C-alpha cells in the first residue's frame, strides 16, 4: 500500500501520478454549517475524504469586546464579558471580577467566594453538558443532546432564580456578588446534585462503551503533551494529553484551595480521552458544589469597594480555569474610571489553533469530531 501520509506524497502524485489522484478538492465548511458551532469557517483541502490541510477563517462574530472595554467604566464592562463565552458566562464574569479586584487590591469576602465557586462549578457542568450534547450530535448520536439540555436546564433555573438571567448572567460584581442567595438556594443546589448524578451515568451508558462511539473517538484528533503545550492548548484538551494542570489546583483563586477535588487526566490525548476527562470533570465539579454548599459561611457578600471604581495605575494578568481552559484577563489601568486596556486571553481561540495539527490526514468526519472535542465557542474565539 502506498503511504499517503508521507509528507510530499500528494505533491509527487500530482507530478507523476495519473489524473485520478491529482485532484484536490477545496471544501468550505462553514460559516453556515451544522457542526461548526456557530460561525467558524474551515477551509479544507481534501483528497477524496482525506484532509490534506485546513485553514480557519474566524472573526464572523467579532464585536470588538476589547475596544468596548476601553469606552466603558469597570462596572459597566462587567456584563459584556458574559457575552464572550456565552455558555460559561459565570466563569467569564468571575475572571473579570477577580482581575479588577486584583487591580483594586481587594478581596471578595468568603461567603461571596463560596457563592462564586458554587455558581462557577455549576456553570462548568452546564458548559460541559452543552459540549457533550453537541459533540455527540456531531458524531451522529442525537439523543444525548436532549438529555444534557434537560439537565442543563436545571442549572439554568438555579441561575435564573439566583441572579435573574439564564445565560448572560452578570452574576458577580467587582468585590463580591450583587445578590444574596435566594430562599431555598442550598436545597435547589443539593437537589440538582442528587438529580444529575444518575443522569451522568446515563450519558455514559449511551456513549462510553458504545462501539461506534469508541471507533469514532479513539485515536482521533491526537495531540501529544509536548504539542499541546507548544500550541498553548489548555483546559480539558491539555489534561486529556496527560498534563495534570488545573489552575484551580496550581494557583488557586476564590478559595478553591479549600475544596477537595481531583484533576482527571487522560493518557492518549485523543477525542475519547477528552470525552472521559470532561465527564470526570463534571463529577468533580459536583463534588466541589456539594462541599461548598454544605460549608457555605455566613457573612457579607461584598467587599468594601468604592462606588466609582478607580483602580490605581498598574497592570495585572489574572486567569482562571474556565470550562474551556485558561481564561485570562490582562487589565491595564491608567487610574481613571475606565480601563486603559483589557485583553482577554480566550481559551477557545488558542485551542482552535490546534485544529489543523489534529485533523491533518484524518477524514472529513473527524474534522467535525475534532471541532466538537475542542469545545470552542465562537463568541469567545471572535470576541
Amino acid at each position: 500500500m502506498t503511504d499517503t501520509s508521507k509528507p510530499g506524497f500528494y505533491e509527487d502524485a500530482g507530478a507523476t501520478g495519473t489524473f485520478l489522484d491529482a485532484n484536490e478538492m477545496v471544501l468550505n465548511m462553514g460559516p453556515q454549517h451544522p457542526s461548526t458551532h456557530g460561525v467558524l469557517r474551515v477551509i479544507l483541502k481534501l483528497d477524496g475524504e482525506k484532509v490534506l490541510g485546513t485553514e480557519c477563517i474566524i472573526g464572523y462574530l467579532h464585536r470588538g469586546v476589547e475596544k468596548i472595554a476601553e469606552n466603558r467604566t469597570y462596572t459597566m464592562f462587567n456584563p459584556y464579558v458574559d457575552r464572550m463565552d456565552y455558555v460559561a458566562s459565570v466563569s467569564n464574569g468571575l475572571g473579570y471580577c477577580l482581575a479588577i479586584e486584583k487591580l483594586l487590591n481587594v478581596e471578595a469576602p468568603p461567603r461571596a467566594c463560596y457563592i462564586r465557586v458554587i455558581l462557577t462549578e455549576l456553570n462548568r457542568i452546564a458548559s460541559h453538558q452543552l459540549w457533550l450534547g453537541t459533540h455527540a450530535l456531531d458524531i451522529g448520536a442525537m439523543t444525548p443532546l436532549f438529555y444534557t439540555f434537560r439537565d442543563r436546564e436545571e442549572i439554568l433555573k438555579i441561575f435564573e432564580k439566583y441572579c435573574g438571567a439564564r445565560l448572560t448572567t452578570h452574576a458577580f460584581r467587582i468585590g463580591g456578588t450583587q445578590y444574596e442567595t435566594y430562599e431555598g438556594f442550598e436545597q435547589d443546589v443539593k437537589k440538582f446534585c442528587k438529580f444529575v448524578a444518575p443522569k451522568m451515568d446515563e450519558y455514559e451508558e449511551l456513549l462510553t462503551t458504545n462501539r461506534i462511539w469508541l471507533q469514532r473517538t479513539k485515536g482521533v484528533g491526537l495531540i501529544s503533551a509536548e504539542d499541546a503545550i507548544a500550541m498553548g492548548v489548555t483546559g480539558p484538551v491539555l489534561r486529556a494529553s496527560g498534563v495534570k494542570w488545573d489552575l484551580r489546583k496550581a494557583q488557586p483563586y476564590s478559595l478553591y484551595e479549600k475544596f477537595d477535588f481531583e484533576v482527571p487526566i487522560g493518557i492518549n490525548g485523543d477525542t475519547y480521552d477528552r470525552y472521559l476527562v470532561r465527564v470526570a470533570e463534571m463529577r468533580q465539579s459536583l463534588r466541589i458544589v456539594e462541599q461548598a454548599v454544605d460549608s457555605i459561611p455566613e457573612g457579607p457578600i461584598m467587599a468594601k469597594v468604592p462606588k466609582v471604581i478607580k483602580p490605581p495605575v498598574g497592570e495585572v494578568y489574572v486567569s482562571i480555569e474556565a470550562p474551556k481552559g485558561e481564561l485570562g484577563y490582562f487589565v491595564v489601568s491608567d487610574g481613571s474610571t475606565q480601563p486603559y486596556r483589557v485583553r482577554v486571553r480566550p481559551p477557545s481561540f488558542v485551542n482552535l489553533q490546534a485544529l489543523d495539527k489534529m485533523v491533518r490526514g484524518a477524514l472529513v468526519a473527524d474534522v467535525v469530531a475534532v471541532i466538537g472535542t475542542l469545545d470552542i465557542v465562537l463568541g469567545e474565539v471572535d470576541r
Partner: protein
Amino acid sequence: MAIAPLLRKMFMVDLMKGLNVTFRYQDPKEVYTEQYPLERPAIAERYRGLPRLNVNPDTGETLCIACNLCASACPEHLIVVGSQRNPVTKRKEMTTFTYDVSRCMFCGLCAEACSTDCLELSQDFEIAQYSRDDLVFDRERLERGSEPTVYTR
C-alpha cells in the same frame, strides 16, 4: 482475547445498553417539554425582563426623582431621563423617560442604581414587537408595565 469481552462484543452488549436507555425514556412521564403558550413557564422573582417604571400605588405618582443614576449606570447609554425643576416644590421632576429596549442587554445595572426602586426589570419576557421603533419605550409604556401576551387560537 479474554472470553467475556469477546462475548460482550459478539452479543452487542454495548449497543443494547444504549438501546435500553432510549427505550426506557419513552415513558410519557419523562417528557420535559413545556407547551409554552398553553403552559406559562415559571419565571423567577429576580428575572430581568422588560423594564418598568413603578408608581406609588396610592397616589399614582411616579417614584422617579430624576436623579439620572440609571442613565449614567447604563453601559449602552440607552436611557434618557428628561427632567424639569418644579417651580413650586423646587424639586427636579421627571418629565420624559425613554428606554431603548432594542439595545438593552438586561444586565440590571440601571435597576441596581435606582435609589427609589422606581426603575425595575420586570418578569415580562415576551419582548417581540413588530417594528424596532416599538422597542423604544416611553414613559407611558414603561409605567403601564408588563402586558402578558394572551394567546388565542
